[in-house]
Each structure stands twice: as structure tokens, then as C-alpha cells.
């Protein structure tokens, strides 16, 4: 991807540090509540499922396979760091690991790829700066 110099880079915090540390190793690790076992993304201060106020999230590595629920082609970005990267495709993905667990990321196949609702994708990573990688998706080959 060109024009990445000023792409906004994530600034890890207490809630997110483990997620970004895994991403740097090209692994998807999502927060899992120690009480109900449900994944939460983004991880809040309270578990979104069981409402436990001390979810004690454990970041669990998952394989990142999922299904496309929608997509858009960004042709003009409000973020100057992405202006050199347009047009690019963003996909709204429901991860297999838990119903309605969603992640939004760039589709690395590009605008030429024909996308349909229900297409299968898997998580990949964009290296955006030294030690920083951001989740993206790639289409699984249709059989």
C-alpha cells in the first residue's frame, strides 16, 4: 500500500496492549471474558455479554476466519495518510469464532476483486510502521 507514511498508527493502552502486541507478530488475539468465556471487540471496561465489571480479559489467539457481511470502497479519505492509498476496499467481517463478533479491515485483494455477501475471508496483516501491524483481510479462494 503506498502513501502509508502518515497513516494513523494505533497507540496501545491498558485495554489494547495485548491485541497490538499480537498483531505485531501477525496474530489475531481477541479479548475473552474470564467469567463467561465470550469474546469482546473492542474490549470495554465491562463485559458486553455477562456485564461483569471485572472481565479480566485474556487475549486469546484465533485464526481470523470469517464471513463478509458488507463492504465499501473508499475513494476519498478524510484521513490524509490514506489519500495516497485510495481507492481501497474495507470489509465488515463476522468472525467464525463467535456469532456477531465483527472486525472491520482493508481487503488486501483490492478494488478489482469481486466481493459478495457471504464471501469467506481470513485475517492478514498490514505492516504500517516498525513494530506495528494492523489487521486486514484476504479473500479465501473460491472452490
Amino acid at each position, binding site marked *: 500500500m503506498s502513501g502509508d507514511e*502518515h*497513516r*494513523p*498508527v*494505533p*497507540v*496501545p*493502552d491498558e485495554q*489494547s496492549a495485548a491485541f497490538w502486541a499480537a498483531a505485531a507478530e501477525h496474530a489475531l488475539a481477541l479479548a475473552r471474558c474470564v467469567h463467561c468465556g465470550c469474546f*469482546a*471487540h*473492542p474490549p*470495554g471496561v465491562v463485559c*458486553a455479554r455477562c456485564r461483569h465489571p471485572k472481565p479480566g480479559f485474556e487475549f486469546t489467539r484465533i485464526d481470523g476466519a470469517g464471513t463478509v*457481511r*458488507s*463492504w*465499501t*470502497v*473508499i*475513494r*476519498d*479519505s*478524510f*484521513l*490524509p*495518510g*490514506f489519500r495516497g*492509498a485510495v481507492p*481501497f476496499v*474495507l470489509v*465488515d467481517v463476522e468472525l467464525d469464532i463467535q456469532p*456477531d463478533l*465483527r*472486525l*472491520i*479491515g*482493508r481487503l488486501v485483494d483490492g478494488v478489482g476483486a469481486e466481493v*459478495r*455477501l457471504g464471501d469467506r475471508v481470513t485475517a492478514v496483516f*498490514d505492516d*504500517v510502521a516498525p513494530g506495528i501491524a*494492523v*489487521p*486486514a483481510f484476504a479473500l479465501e479462494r473460491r472452490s
Partner: protein
Amino acid sequence: MSPRFRARCQVAIAGYAQSPIERRASRPLGVIALDTALQAIADAGLARDQIDGFVTASLLPSAGPHESVDGVSIVTANWLAQQLGVHPRFACGFQGFGQLAGSVMLAVNAVASGAANYVLLHRALHNPPVGRYHANPMTEARGALQWTAPQGYFGPLAMIALPYNEYLQRYGASRDAMAAVLVEARANGARIPWSYWHDRPITADDYLAARVIADPIGVLDCDIPVDGVAAFVITTADRARDLQHPPVYVAGYAQGSPRRARLPLHWPLDDIMEAGFDIARRLEESSGLSPQEIDVPQLYDGFSPLVYFWLESLGLCPVGEAHRFVQDDGIRTDSGLPVLSGGGALGNGRMHGVPQMLECYLQLSGRAADRQLRSARVGLACHSSPHYGGAVLYTGEPL
């Protein structure tokens, strides 16, 4: 306990004022707000010292780094009261997204409870003079934005593009169908003297030729940022009947809210629709009126797909059919449901829910002049997406 609204038709709109809607005004926003407030108070036949309540939602709805400066880029209730030299018993702001509906709810509750006798409700919207409205030069994404901005998912166009594309794909609809919505909004806006788009209707070809920014959202699917202020005087029905204009009564209201925590700006279609169904049910419980009894249903259209989502969630057409309904002249003001008769945000400029509320008021009070509809007894003013928004039901006669 009955969900029926106990203050049903006990509170009414007694007067209004609307400033010219300009791309960039030559006067500070606060000065326009002051002028507009005084005009609304005069329109109601009141003196400023009778106003004892002030309500607004002051948010500058931009994804950019524009500063919120009271009197310059925003106008709060307290700022306006102070500049008018009034010391109100009640002044507050609504903090959610469905700002016009939310502000009306605060004002109605204040009047119904006796916390204030005459509330001035205003909405002031600003288009910052420097930089693009939503542009943001951030190079670091912190807090909630760290989950989406590093991927390039940012700003409200991408936000609405995802559920809109989900709709098109799910129901086999074409982006081209939306031309009927834009042509209708702009035709009506063209007839409104204060509209930014006054005298500037568009054709379907204009719509189809416009630049696409975040597929399927194009530049004309978005309302244009403007400077403008509207103000309304809200009081008890009894007091309103003694004033110079016919009262327009608040028959009920309803809000929607998202049921799940999501990523920032992530609006799956089903989240929007289930909240819309909640609103339709709550409106009926609150007022005793069904959506089919509304003859002036003013739907929110800050982004064009919201017209589809409101049409379907209110049951004004079947789910999945809005794209056909609009193409079959279903929303033509002269022959169908007048859902954009007031021009909406697409036909006026980014006045948030003001055009919807104002059209309900003008039509139901019989003050719409040459735009007066033949039948205007029950109006609905929607604002925002159903899952962050609300709707207020108005009647021309008390129920």
C-alpha cells in the same frame, strides 16, 4: 403502568424562526442564533422576559479537529440565555445523536412538569471556515479510534456506506434507485426560500453523475455542511391557545438505542432496523396513533439511505421494498407520502432534524403558504439513524 404519554397534547409549539441557510455565513453563529431566537419569541407573540426555559443540542457533528467555541462554532442553551439577558429557571442540552427529537423531549418534559412555562428550543449548526468538514490530520489513533482508524475506517460516510451496501446486496437493489429520493428532496428544497438549495433542483442524471466517495455513498447522498439556526417556542397547550398562531401539539415521542456494543461508527443494518421497529412500536404506545395515520411523516435524510431505513422500520412500506417504493413515486409530495415535503437535510443543508420538525410545524399550523398540503393533521419528525435517534409525533388538534 401504561406506556401512554401522560403529557399527550398538553404541550405545543407556539412559534418559530429559521435563519437563511448559508454555506458560510458572514456573521458569527452566535449572532445569528440571537437574531433567530428574538424572531421566534416575537413570532409567538411573547416578550423575551417571558422565556424561562432554554434547550438545545449543541454538538458540532464533525469528525475533524474543529474546536467547539460557544457563540462561534456552537451555541449552548446557557450561552443564548445569557446573551438574551434572561435568567432562566431551566436550561439544558441534549447529549445524544438524535438531537432535535431529544431536545424536543427535554423541552416537552420541562413544560409538562412546570419546570418552565415557555421554552426556547434552538439548534445552531456551523460549517467551519477552514479545512474540510470531516478531514482529520491525526497520525496517531487513541482510545476507541485505535480499533478502526488505523485500517482507514473513519468518518460518517464509511459508517453509512456499510449498512447501505448491506441493504443493496441483501435486497438486490440498485444504487440508482436513490435518485428518486434526491430529486424529491431537492425539488422540495428548491421551493423553500431559506434553503441553501433554494431554486436549485436536480435531475436523476445529476445524481448519477455525482462523485462517489465511499461506495455506494456519493457526494449527493450527504447533506451539505452549512451555517444556520432555527428556534421554536414551546409552551403548555393552554398557553399556546391564547397566542397568535394555531398551536401544534406534541402527541408522543420515542427514542431508539443500539442493543450491542460495537466498534466506533459500526452500524450493521440489523442494529438500525431493530431499533427502528422499537421506535414505531413506542410511538404507537405513546400516542395511540399508528404510523399509517401519519399524513406528514418527515423522515430523516442526513444520509440518503436513512430514508429507506425509516420508511421500512415505521412500516410505511414493506421491509426490503423502499428502493422500489421511491422509484414508484411513493414519496412524491404531490401524489405519494410527503416524507420529504420540507426538503429534509438533503434539500436544505445540514440542519440536522430541523427541516423535519419545521415542516411538521408549518404544515400542521397551516403556515406552509403555497406549500400547504391538502391533508396535514398528524406529523412525525424523525432525526438521526433509528438506533441513535428519535421521533416526535405532532397533531394539529389535541387528541
